């Protein structure tokens, strides 16, 4: 079995998730172990087998085209994150202003 090659920084970037310097080596070591364990799958002959994505081989149920949700924005924005910085905080310290969720400038 070929040694597992893991670009952990690339994976962390894809997952938009910071790994601190002190957690990176441990994360890499654990991930290697997991991937080695997972590589045991290679022993199984899957020739001609179709993948099974859902445990019940059923078709999706469709919903009639009706509007049944009414939105109370203040209610749902009541759980908006608290912005610890002043820049993006609106009323109540939440990262919401004028009904918009606020994030650092996303440049187009």
């Amino acid at each position, binding site marked *: 079995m070929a040694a597992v090659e893991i670009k952990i920084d690339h994976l962390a970037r894809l997952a938009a998730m910071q790994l601190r310097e002190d957690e990176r080596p441990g994360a890499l070591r654990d991930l290697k172990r997991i991937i080695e364990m997972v590589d045991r799958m290679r022993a199984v002959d899957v020739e001609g087998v179709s993948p099974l994505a859902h445990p019940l081989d059923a078709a999706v149920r*469709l*919903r009639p085209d*009706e509007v049944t*949700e009414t939105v109370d924005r203040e209610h749902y924005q009541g759980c908006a994150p608290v912005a610890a910085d002043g820049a993006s905080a609106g009323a109540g310290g939440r990262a919401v202003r*004028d*009904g*918009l969720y606020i994030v*650092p400038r996303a440049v*187009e």
Partner: protein
Amino acid sequence: MSGHPGWEAVIGLEIHVQLATRSKIFSAAANRFGEPPNTLACPVDLGLPGVLPVPNEAPVGMAVRFGLAIDAEIRPKSHFERKNYFYPDLPKGYQISQFERPVVGAGRLQVRLDDGEAIEVGIVRAHLEEDAGKSIHDAYEGATGIDLNRAGTPLLEVVTGPDMHTPEQASACFRQLHSLVRYLGICDGDLSQGSMRCDVNVSVRPAGQEKLGERAEVKNLNSFRFVEKAAHFEIDRQIDRLQRGLPVARETRLYDSVKDETRPMRGKEQSNDYRYFPDPDLPPLALGEAFIESVRSTMPELPWDRRRRFLEEYGLGGITVGSRVGLMDGASLVGKELGKADRTISIPGDDRIDKTIVEYDADRLTRDPDIAAYFEEVVDAVRRAKRAVEDGGDQDGREATARQAKLAANWILGELTRHLNQEGLDFAKCKLPAAALGALIVRIEDQTISGKTAKILFDALWEGAAVGADGRPAAGGLADALKLVDGMIEARGLRQLSDSGELKALVAEVVAAHPQQAEQFRAGRHKVLGFFVGQVMRASGGKANPQQMQALLRDALAQGETAA
């Protein structure tokens, strides 16, 4: 290709069609524009912890409708998949889309170009997906605001083959798809609201080379003209680079309509590893024969079928129409979006061109289902009015219908379109009742008024319709419309001078006043007749019936000859 001999451009489109459903594709929140931010974003649209998508049946039916219209394979089993990337207007961190197995497979589309030619464009696939929300970048210093009202709007993404080779073909294809989705009733087609957004893939290669060049994708174009302009710019840019020995980068670009240029898109700087996989919240979408048949049985008339029917039923063309005024104006005034073609077609007396105009009329009339419906209403009004007068005796029915239809087409594509454009209105919002235009055409046809005075009357009708004395569009019914038009003709003294007595006197007066020119005519310089036509027309205040006037003038001038 023109402008760049020795080079060939290859263009493909990806078009996002917002489907006109009541609720969103995976949630039961309303699918609407123009509400305050985040007031249409329910827990599913917000991607709150624990929520689940439940697919709406309407977008599925609409996708099938589209697929049937382009003769595509409808997949009995398709999958919803997750497309993973992070962006603040994408609440779940993934977009539910279709990748490996879209609901609509390969089909084809006949695209009519403005020069009357048609090309076939392959549709590679059409798949369902959810729209993202909106990022508002300019409202706050250093911050972006996120409105998720649009998140979860159903989209049908239509992908064409790389089958177009000129910017004009690309915009015509976009236009054809726009027309189609409106006929199908699956999209409101409001480009200004982003109801259809077009990505244009452009590459160039030396003519004769098989291998495709590296392509650039210009994203998010929302008008036919921008598609054309962006493609023009890209073709020029890419050929220029290659000629200078520089490579063309595979990249995503944005079109700046102010500067009329494209430039590379920044932001969203992550790699394109979208990690598609079947959405575990959504088992496969299975479409039975019965479902597909039920959609098939409710298919509306398609634009190309209506076009063919118009050509057959109204025989537009092959018929000489008295007044060309409307036609000529129509040809030069229609549409904001028209390219060069419209300026080359209104040459009177050219048979070949005449035929083009016929197809051209049908194209223009059937492109927008609202125009097509309006046209049929006008023609129907005229027919009913004539039938009432002529006691049902429709002697040369086909020819009359064609003549009336041609007049209707000219007025609709000319004056009416011009007025709508001036006020920035769609046909759907046309305030002038079809019956009123029908009544006007009836009075042109029976020579009560001339084409020229008809335009004055049309303006008056338009204003009246716009103002609406009782707040409602005037003259909704045919009888009312005729009464209204006749009343206006009388009140304004616009009745055409066709009764021989009055016109004859006027002609005699003019001939007598210009003995020198009369002499020239008699000497064989028949061109001078035009001078007399102008004089009589001026003297009549534009009300002289041109045909009768010409006959009378010839008579009067000839009489003078005899007298001499």
